C-alpha cells in the first residue's frame, strides 16, 4: 500500500525520531536516537471539546439510524465496515465515506491515499534531474547520480502504490547513461589535453 508521510506529533528536528512525552521539556534536549541537541520550549495546549449538535430530534419512521447517534438518520454507510452513519459521522474528504473510527485507523496506517493532501513524486523529481543534466551538460555526473537515486525511490514508491514502474526504470537508465557520458567526456578531455 502507499506510504504517506503522516505527521505524528513532535519529533527530533534533526533525525525525526518520535520523541517520548517524558523528554518533551524546556531547555536543551539531547535526542537519545541521534545524540544531537536542540533547544526546546514545551507547551501544553488545552484539549478541544467539540459538541456535536443534533440534526433532528427523531429519525423519520423507516429510516436507518446512525450507529453512533441514535437520534440521527443515517445518510450513508462506512465504505470499510458498513456501519450506518449520519452526516456528523461521515468522514468524507474526497476519499469516500468512512465512519470516524475507520477513518482514524486508515489515516494512522497512512493508507487513506485520497485523504492525503500531497506526497512527493520521486519519479517526477528524477525526471527533472535528468532534464537538468541534459541542459547543464557539464554537470551531468551529479545530476545523473541524483536522478538515479530519485528514480530508485520513485520505483519503490510506485511499486508500493501498485503503479507501473516503467518510467522510473527508464529514468534510472538515462541517469546512468548521463553519469557514464560525463565520465567519458572528462576522460576524453583529459586524454586530448595530455596527448596534445
Amino acid at each position, binding site marked *: 500500500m502507499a506510504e504517506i508521510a503522516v*505527521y505524528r*506529533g*513532535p*519529533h527530533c*528536528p*534533526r533525525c525525526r525520531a518520535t520523541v517520548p512525552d517524558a523528554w*518533551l521539556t524546556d531547555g536543551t*534536549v539531547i535526542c537519545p536516537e541521534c545524540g*544531537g*541537541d*536542540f*533547544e*526546546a*520550549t*514545551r*507547551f*501544553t*495546549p*488545552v484539549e*478541544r471539546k467539540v459538541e456535536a449538535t443534533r440534526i433532528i430530534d427523531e429519525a423519520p419512521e423507516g429510516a436507518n439510524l446512525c450507529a453512533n447517534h441514535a437520534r440521527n438518520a443515517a445518510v450513508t454507510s462506512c465504505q470499510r465496515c458498513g456501519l450506518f452513519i449520519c452526516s456528523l459521522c461521515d468522514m468524507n474528504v474526497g476519499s469516500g465515506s468512512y465512519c470516524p473510527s475507520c477513518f482514524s485507523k486508515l489515516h494512522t496506517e497512512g493508507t487513506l491515499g485520497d485523504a492525503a*493532501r*500531497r506526497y*512527493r*513524486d520521486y519519479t*517526477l*523529481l528524477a525526471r*527533472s534531474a535528468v532534464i537538468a543534466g541534459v541542459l547543464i551538460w*557539464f*554537470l551531468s*555526473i*551529479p545530476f545523473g547520480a541524483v536522478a538515479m537515486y530519485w528514480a530508485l525511490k520513485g520505483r519503490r514508491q510506485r511499486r508500493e502504490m501498485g503503479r507501473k514502474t516503467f518510467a522510473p526504470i527508464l529514468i534510472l537508465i538515462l541517469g546512468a547513461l548521463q553519469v557514464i557520458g560525463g565520465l567519458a567526456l572528462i576522460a576524453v578531455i*583529459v586524454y586530448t*589535453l595530455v596527448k596534445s
Partner: protein
Amino acid sequence: MNETGRKLVGKSTSLSGREMVYQTAEGFEVVKTENYEVEELRVFFDDVMMVTIHREVGVLFLVFTGLISLFFIAFALFFFFVDDDTWPASLIFLVLGSPAIVAFLVRAIFRIDVVTIFGRRSKATMRFRIRKQRAREVYEQVCAAVREAQRRRDPVSEP
C-alpha cells in the same frame, strides 16, 4: 502584517521545494511549494506543543556543493599548471564554479539555524542561513505568541 492579515516570519528552502511560514492572528500558515504542487497548512497557536531551535550543517548540501567545487577547482588547477598560456581557462572554470564554492563556504562557516513549530496535527519549519540573530528573535516571538494565546485560552493553568 500585509493586506491579507499575515506576516512572513520565515522560510525554508531545499533542493526539492520551499516552505513559507506566515504568522496570522490565529496561528501560522505554512505554504509548501514542492515542484509544481502547493500545499497550505495551519498550525494554530492553540495546537502548538513544542517549539525548537537548533543549528545544523546539512551534510547533503555540503557534499553536493563540495563535489561541484572540487570538480571546478580541479579543472582550474589543471589548466593553471598544464601550460603557461592556459591560465584563462582556469579562470573560466573558477568563475563557473564560484557559486558552488561560495555556497559551500557560506554553509560551512555560518551553518544553518532551524526553528521548528510542532503542532498537534502539523508543523512549520523555518531555516535561517546567515541571520542568526533573526532566528533567535523569531524563536522568541513564536514562543511568546503561543504562550500568550494559550494563556488567554486557559488562564487557570498559567502561574
